[in-house]
């Protein structure tokens, strides 16, 4: 114990005589460094005849030395005009950058387009009734979408997690007076087992226009613009006849394969085209069910899935990454 007191006394006088930072740092390393005196003394505790008391003394000694060095450092800093960085400064790093989820970024790019076209945004419940998810969309009783393996029911048969964004369309038609133009990014559910390439949650983007005049020409032009927004001005789009219960005529928009440019490859299964979603002129029965006179008002609707597009753009291999998975963002702009 006497030794410690002696060392403390010596150290006090040495530290007091220091005039430069470098000298103080030399003493700090001698005493507090990894190979320094105090660490050596700590490793000798177990061989000390009275280890507990020696350990306590040693801790006290270390605290005093740290305080001596810290106080001296503060003095030197106030007296010196040096630009030497201070000890214990907060971490220095590049500014922390926040990020929006890739799905959000994609939805926003589309939202922006539709805001320019005078659209509002809209939303509806995720727990949906059979009426709004199927009946009001002209889906007959034996449609495959009603099968148990496709829908996740909360209370069968009347309550389920919405299987399609069109349920928001059904809500919109029944809640608002035309004319209106609305777009709605939405999350929908199917009863699928989750694995690397399948998920039970999908992200759809849908839109609806109801006005005195809404033609297939308007629809095709709008979808083409949407695809140009997403895929660039050189995208090649075609429209084909397709069946959906809630529209008549129905439309299937396709995009020319971005890999083979129409020649046919494994990605497009030799067709040269990739299916992109569904669209059409709103079926008069759907308007009637919402209390909208189909002889006065006409409308079109369209929808597309976002997940595959987002995965391709962000080079994501595993669809589970999109929701609560391994998706992460670099903290700084690197």
């Amino acid at each position, binding site marked *: 114990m006497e030794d410690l007191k002696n060392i403390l006394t010596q150290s006090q006088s040495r530290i007091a005589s220091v005039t430069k930072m470098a000298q103080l740092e030399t003493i700090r390393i001698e005493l507090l460094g990894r190979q320094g005196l105090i660490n050596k003394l700590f490793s000798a505790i177990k061989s000390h005849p009275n280890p507990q008391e020696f350990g306590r003394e040693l801790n006290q000694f270390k605290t005093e030395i740290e305080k001596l060095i810290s106080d001296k450092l503060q003095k030197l800093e106030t007296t010196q005009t040096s630009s030497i*960085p201070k000890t214990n*400064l907060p*971490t*220095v*790093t*590049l500014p*922390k950058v*926040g*990020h*929006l*989820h*890739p799905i*959000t*970024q994609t939805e*926003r790019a589309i*939202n*922006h387009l539709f805001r320019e*076209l*005078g659209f509002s945004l*809209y*939303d509806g419940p*995720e*727990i949906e009734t059979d009426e709004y998810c199927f009946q009001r969309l002209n889906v007959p*009783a034996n449609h495959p979408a009603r*099968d148990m393996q496709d829908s*996740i029911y909360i209370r069968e048969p009347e309550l389920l997690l919405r299987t399609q964004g069109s349920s928001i369309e059904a809500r919109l038609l029944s809640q*608002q007076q035309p004319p*209106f133009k609305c777009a709605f990014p939405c*999350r929908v559910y199917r*009863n699928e*087992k989750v*694995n690397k390439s399948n998920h039970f949650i999908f992200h759809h983007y849908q839109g609806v226009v109801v006005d005195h005049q809404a*033609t*297939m*020409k308007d629809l*095709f*032009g*709008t979808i*083409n613009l949407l695809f140009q927004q997403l895929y660039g001005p050189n995208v090649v789009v*075609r*429209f*084909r*006849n*397709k*069946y959906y219960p809630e529209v*008549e*005529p129905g439309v*299937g928009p396709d995009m020319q394969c971005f890999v083979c440019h129409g020649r046919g490859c494994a990605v497009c299964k030799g*067709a040269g085209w990739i299916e992109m979603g569904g669209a059409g*002129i709103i079926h008069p*029965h759907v308007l009637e069910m919402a209390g909208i006179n189909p002889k006065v008002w006409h409308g079109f609707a369209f929808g597309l899935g976002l997940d595959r597009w987002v995965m391709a753009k*962000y080079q994501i291999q595993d669809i589970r990454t999109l*929701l*609560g998975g*391994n*998706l*992460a*963002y*670099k*903290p700084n702009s690197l």
Partner: protein
Amino acid sequence: MKIVYSELLKLLPKLTVNPSQLRDDLTLIGHFVSGFQTVENDTILDLEIRQNRADCLGYYGVARDLSVYYQTELKVDDHIAINYPDQLCDLNIKSPDVYRLLATTISHLTISSSPRWLIKLLQQHDINPINNLVDITNYVMLIFGIPCHAFDTAKTGSNLIWENNHDLYPQFQTLDGSTLNLSALNLIIHNHQLPLSLSFIGGNNSGIDQSTTEAIIEMAIYNPSRVRTDSRGLKTITQASIRLDKQLDTETIPMAFSYLIKMILNYCHGQLTTQLFDYYPQPYSPQPIDFNLKLSTDIAGINIPDDFSLNVLTRLGCQIDQQQITPPTIRKDINIAEDLAEEVIRFWGYQQIPINQPVNPAKLTDITPKVIYLVENIKDVLRSLGYDEIRSWPLVQTPLDQPTAVYTQNSINSEYPILRQSIIQSLKNQLDQYQRLSLPQTQFFEIGKIFSQKNGQYQEQYSLGIYHHTTSKLQSDIEILFQKLGLPLPQTNYQDKFVEIILDKIITPPDYSYSPPATDNQATELTRQIITLDANVSYNPPQNPQELIQKYTKLIDPHLLWSISIIDTFQNKYTFRVSYYNCDDKTAKKIHLSTFELTNMLSDKNMSPTPKSKETTRLYYQDMYLQTSSATITNIISKNNHQYLIFDQTIFFPGGGGQPADIGFITHHDQNFPLISISERDGQVLHEITPSTQLSINDQVTLQLDWNHRYQHMKIHSAGHLLHEVVMYLNNTLIPLKGYHQPPAFLTYQGLLDPSLKNKIDLEVNHLIVDNLSILCDYTTIEELRLDSRSIPINLPTNKKLRRLKIGQYPSMADGGIQVKSTKEIGQITITSIEYQNFQTKISYQVY
């Protein structure tokens, strides 16, 4: 629906387009071609026939569409004359589900193999050729889309009855020998003794074979809902059910049936012995539709000439009377004027409609719900404060508040049956994942729906959840957030480093809106852990830290650099902390050393500061029945009057997963050292003994297991897992919580298991013991485990091999315990009690 190009040409002999053009045209007019294959100088096109186009489930319907599109001749002999004799066909229709049925009897049949062209065509449609008669029925189904069937009268008799089962027969055996359990309403064909056929699949007691000389041939259309219900209820889908569960055309039957009979007489010879039986209680009569030819122009937005419209409708087979159009009976999908307009537009060609004229961009009243603007504004502010947005599953494993939780009824992802009641549940899951990936200094948020219910009334609300690794920063950021939003600070729910705010409750001003900033930033799919390394670097004279960071940032490949910061400075010394991604430890270290020109200054935050000790070889995993072995002492640790031996290998299981540690002793020079405890640290197994000076490093010792103790716990452990399989089979909504595999052994689950199932479980689990299922234990990866497990514990390490247990064909599970090799070894299991308390079920068991 497959179409062979050469077969199609028989119906459209003047078709000149090549198969490739045909594919594109079929797709454009609504028959999407999803497959296109050239085989032996022919082409097979695979069409996705839409649900409303039952007419196109045969070549005939597709050819009708194409004859309109290409304005070419459709060649079908629709006036085949068949001379039926006068003898009555003895059939009886008692079911209202029979819409139309044609039948007759043919005797003196010659059953043999089919001609080569027919065999080839059926094979091109993935149908196995059987014999000439059966093959012809399949062929006619492919051509006209209407299934037909032949009954061998030597087996069935000639008096057949079509009737709903009404519990006449409990079971039915199909052609392939499968047994189906019939219900009351199933539509059956029987002969008072046996069920011979269902509407969509034949039976094994009426089929045509080489010995058949006489057969009843029938073609029918049934109530499609009945067929759909029967086929799905009996989990049997056939080529016939796919067609019969849709609206087929009752008026096409006579033509198709005549075609069928003509082919049978040609290829199987034979003589007609009964007259034509034609049951058609309610003949179909299509309704005329008021149709203005201008409607097609109005809908398309381009001018479509009237004469074109009239031509299309005529060629489709519509009856046209002024503005009244009556569609052909085969087109059950045409019911309203818009259906007719669609026909005109699709044949005019969607490609004729311009695609460069979007909807009028005039602004209409903004009806956007204010909460959507609030959500968007919050995202922008949080992003500017350095937060990352996450999106997660809204389904969770456990409820926060059982009475108000919303459960899914049938989700096949049954381990996540509940809709989240708080967004913090999702944030915690994400934080766990980020910690597994060693992601440093995370701060993130999510905005999404949360769900609850009360007395059957369901509620969903927008909820904002935020996480920051520093609570004080989180609190100050929330204040800044609402200052920037210009809204009063709402009620907040803090939970440690998380906060939740319900957005639906926030009142926004009437003119509240949103102006999005331009953003486009990157996100990364992490496939391995982040590697974080420190480096101490000196500069003389001292440098500006920001400039140093910029300097080193440029030196490291951006595809590998996750983040860089200076975490400490002292005078001219700087401690850098660098996180690397997309690479392994070794690569990260190499880059780190070269970047900072380090030699021995490297300090690795993730690694142990001392060289890693060699792991103990676990003989108990290699051979779970090993009772003794030799070992070498590699280290002796003495600490606080305790002594621990580390060997190069061990047979002693240190315990885990509910199974206790082994007991036994260590022998050295005939002296026994009983084991006090066994534990595990850094991959090494520590064997505690009473401190002794007689043992030294490198001594050879013998390890001796108390086998009775070990074997009993192996059996109890395996019994616990077997019991778990039975429990999950009976109620897969339970969430496993804990297994305790030593007396008093028990399993606990979140959720209710009916205690009255006790005897049933007892019986089932002991049956499985008698079945002597294999119990396999091996090493696997977390990815493989995910593929074959019901669920895996959330805290499993992702960077090393895992132990896997598999009983029989049950799903695998992660398990680090010691098991017996087969269920018979367990002996007998008795379920002693099933208790339910605090939403948890505890199942206690014993092994004898």
